[in-house]
């Protein structure tokens, strides 16, 4: 298990290899569909994402005694951001993306070029992952985008995942996809009678 603390340096990120478990601590920023589109179209960014981690996550957050309490915070499917991600990595200096399901060629190349990694958290494991959230330091775009799509600034301790796309341009998903393509060919040969 490699441990990383915010701000994340290019050197630390480049040492991570596909298949390695990683634990993140410090600040992370949630970012989903609306925010990616907003930033991609040149919209205002209220936080500094340089050397930061973005978390593809739309949490359930409750207001209690004037503080925000994160109840559930698992990852959402990352691939929907594929069109926006490469430019945002380059423009904002994002070092770590946490999400689920992996991303495409553009992001793989941007990770290699800019020194960024993609970390797969366990999808659906919202209760477990919410335990890593210590506090909410700020929220932006809550009224405009709603609870799930807002930019939540989370302070986390030991947010865990596996490095699935590294800064050397390797992708775990590409390997699994190719292997499963070969397996599919075999399975198709052994059909059922009409």
């Amino acid at each position, binding site marked *: 298990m490699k441990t990383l603390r915010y701000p994340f340096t290019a050197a630390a990120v480049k040492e991570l290899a596909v*298949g390695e*478990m990683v634990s993140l601590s410090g600040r992370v920023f949630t970012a989903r569909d*609306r925010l990616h589109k907003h930033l991609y179209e040149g919209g205002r960014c209220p936080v500094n994402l340089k050397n930061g981690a973005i978390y593809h*996550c*739309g*949490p*359930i957050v*409750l207001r209690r005694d004037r503080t925000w309490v994160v*109840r*559930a*915070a*698992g990852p*959402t*499917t990352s*691939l929907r951001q594929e069109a926006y991600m490469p430019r945002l990595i380059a423009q904002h200096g994002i070092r770590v993306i946490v999400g*689920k*399901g*992996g991303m495409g060629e553009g992001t793989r190349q941007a990770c290699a070029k800019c020194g960024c990694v993609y970390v*797969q958290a*366990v*999808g*659906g*494991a*919202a*209760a*477990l*992952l*919410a*335990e890593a959230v210590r506090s909410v330091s700020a929220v932006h775009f809550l009224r405009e*985008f*709603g*609870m*799930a*799509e807002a930019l939540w600034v989370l302070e986390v301790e030991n947010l865990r995942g*596996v490095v*699935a796309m590294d800064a050397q341009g390797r992708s*775990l*998903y590409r*390997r*699994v*996809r190719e*292997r*499963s*393509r070969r*397996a*599919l060919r*075999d*399975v*198709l040969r*052994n*059909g*059922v*009678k*009409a």
Partner: protein
Amino acid sequence: MKKAHWEKNLVELIRRASTDLPADVEAALRRALNREKKSSLAAWALESMLQNAARARRDGIPICQDTGELIFFFRVPVEFDTNGLAARARAAVSRATRLGYLRQNTLDAVSGASFETNVGYGAPTFCFEQGGRKTVDVRLVLKGGGCENVGGQYSLPDAGLDAGRDLEGVRRCVLDAVWRAQGAGCAPGVIGVCIGGSRASGHVHAKEQFLRRVGERNRVRALARLETKLLADVNRLGVGAMGLGGKTTALAVKIGALSRLPACFFVTVSAMCWAFRRRGVVLGPEGGVHRWLY
């Protein structure tokens, strides 16, 4: 109809659905974990899922933050006030959202605005059926957006898949859908399939398959055989938990069939993620609990 009674028990149904993974699903995940190598990524993912389920149950926290499309399946007595029941269910959904069992998860498709309590146009989803009994059977499935996105509908014959209008053609469609999804639908879950029907009814019937338990055998022998064969096939793909590679890509395949038009042969595939939130309750005529299902 005593409003408070109905509402209270429907909120409890939502709470159970959102926070308490059904035993059949949990047992299937545990079997999947036992099949994987101890230090593999698949084992890590499956272990996290089981830990998460235990934590969610203990603390009353949603299993997954995407509390999904709420699909209510009602079976009511003849001449029952279904409008009143729908109103009670909407009120329960609002309250469950305020209590944090559901995320604010319903958007206006035109303006993008978020509905505060998950009651929107056509949301939640209601399916009504009349039955002979005096009780009301309510089954609730919460279906997240990640797995909803990877579902699809095929029209046979499909030259690209070399799939004809027979069960082998159906098999090819299902394998294609599962392969394309990879880990995006939060595997390993359950694959619901409808053979036949129309473009609309096919999707509904594919989702109705999720009301069946993981181990429940199909009463139609040909479909039972196809389910067994497809489950083995799907799990040979090696996609694994969250698409990280592994021996279990699905916990079950459930297949239903509807009559079709001579010109149409649809195969509809709906994926349910591992966070398979399904609960049910039988309520009396006054809204009191007779028994909990699943």
